[in-house]
């Protein structure tokens, strides 16, 4: 008996519909794609003053008061620092944030704790109308500095005046 060997016909799928859908998906994603700038945080802890008393520390951190004074239209006019020993005023000039950073760095270096700043706290007293951007620059100025591409941390404990809470 002779067996007939039939050559199988190649199966051809119709790809048109799938390619249509795939291209529509592609177009959707391209149209909705948005390049978003990377965002960063300043993490802060601000419990209510009336909360449970947890301060058992023998020594409270040394406090530096930083007063941000607003000029017309909410633009920063001057920065005043008061650490109970001396009161300094920076500004009005464009370098006042740099002056603040230098002061904090000198202060921490004098305390023999130039790196961590764990035992020093900053209390901000900010004029109501001061634009938030200037406040963030002040927070940045006391929290650290960038030199030679490296970040040097200064003071991490901060709080706002009249809120009696930690920032």
């Amino acid at each position: 008996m002779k067996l007939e060997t039939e050559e199988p016909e190649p199966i051809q799928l119709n790809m048109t519909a799938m390619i249509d859908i795939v291209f529509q998906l592609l177009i959707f994603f391209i149209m909705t794609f948005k390049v978003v700038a990377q965002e960063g945080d300043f993490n802060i802890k601000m419990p209510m003053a009336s909360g449970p008393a947890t301060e058992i520390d023998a020594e409270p951190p040394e406090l530096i008061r930083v007063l941000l004074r607003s000029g017309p239209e909410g633009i920063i006019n001057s920065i005043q620092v008061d650490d109970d020993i001396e009161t300094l005023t920076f500004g009005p000039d464009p370098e006042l944030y740099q002056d603040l950073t230098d002061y904090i760095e000198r202060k921490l270096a004098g305390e023999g704790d130039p790196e961590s700043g764990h035992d020093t706290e900053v209390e901000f007293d900010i004029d109501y109308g001061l634009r938030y951007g200037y406040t963030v620059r002040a927070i940045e100025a006391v929290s650290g500095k960038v030199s030679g591409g490296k970040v040097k941390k200064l003071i991490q404990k901060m709080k706002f005046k009249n809120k009696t809470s930690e920032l």
Partner: protein
Amino acid sequence: MKLNKTKSSKVLEGDLTPMIDMTFQLIAFFMLLINFSEVDRAEEITLPVSELAIPPEGRPDYQVILNLEPGGNVIFEGQRIPQIDIMTPILDQEIRNASREDIDVSQIAVIIRSHEDTPTGLVQKLIAKCQDVEMENFVLRVKEKINQ
């Protein structure tokens, strides 16, 4: 003269495999990068720029994103709230939602995205309003400045 018109007519079929491969890779790329949380970010808010801000380390267990406009409007989940003073019921609702997930109010991360021109007093007022309902974990969000 006799013209030979009988040609074998074949359908031209290009190999579509590489194109489909590339297309699927592109779709996968865009699907991974698409950000569905855009509703939390108000486009009209211009954040202050800082080079010392820490990039967010993952998503907190529970977060409340409050966008603050210069005029004092708060944008929360795409909804514009005209005054900070009327935020309390919304914050209370968030606390209830968090407690359903066994998250304590002290663990709720309040992310404040304030416009750079907003008076700082308004930011402090918003923080105080959150403190009134015992929220204490705040994040001041800024735009990261790339170091040169």
